């Protein structure tokens, strides 16, 4: 039992660290604020959730606390990503290499009317 718990904890830590790293790498490599939010907002949460799994299995944190923290992370993560992207769009930060922009089209149409 102890061995299985250690194995689960180690696997969760390794995968969680991998995703946290991928999130940081995405923050550096992706071109603009909107695509960077994909990397930090979602992949970062994924890494944190897996690290919480490891903590729940291996440390005296307990599943109740871990599950509550995971739920809060998953509820608040997309909300903060949405608010940041919305604010960025409103102050007019451009998208790099965009192939379409329905929102700009809709707004110019609304301005015409």
């Amino acid at each position, binding site marked *: 039992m102890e061995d299985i718990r250690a194995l689960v904890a180690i696997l969760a830590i390794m995968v969680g660290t991998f995703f946290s790293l991928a999130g940081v790498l995405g923050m550096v490599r992706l071109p603009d604020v909107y695509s960077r939010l994909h990397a930090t907002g979602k992949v970062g949460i994924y890494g944190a959730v897996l690290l919480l799994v490891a903590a729940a299995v291996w440390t005296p944190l307990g599943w*109740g606390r871990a599950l509550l923290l995971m739920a809060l992370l998953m509820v608040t993560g997309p909300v903060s990503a949405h608010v940041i992207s919305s604010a960025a769009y409103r102050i007019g930060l451009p998208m790099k290499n965009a192939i379409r922009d329905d929102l700009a089209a809709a707004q110019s149409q609304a301005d015409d009317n």
Partner: protein
Amino acid sequence: MVIYLRWIVALALVYLALTSNLEPSNIVVGLLLAGGVVALIRPPRRPTQPRRPLRSVVASARYVLTLGYDMVVSGVQVARIVLSPSLPIRPGIVAIPAETNTDLGIALSAHAVSLTPGELVVEIDDDHMMYTHCLDATHAETYIKDAHDLRIELLNEIFP
């Protein structure tokens, strides 16, 4: 009164999960704290009551499972894009209809879209159109539509 009791029980459960201590004295403390919070905040009555509690519980469970699966796929997909040397993204903002009318439904479906692979809701207008930033905007509409339809169906079962 019954509605307030429901809030008190839910808040007390959160308190017990956070303290992870099931002794009777701790349960009493949790209930008292939850009662104090509810007395101070006076949460609003819920607008709709589920007509079929069992079906809405099953639909909620399926909804949470779908979201979890989407999160896993989302993480793997974005990690693959970030790690590939050529950085294969074709970003763009795509308009998707939310297809629900209540505020809660729109908030939940925007939340779900933001959790799914390579999509992020930037703006919602008065016509319930969700303007979504996609990492790959070429086939986004058909792709999102499929996932979106399933979630709308589940949401309609949870909040009839």
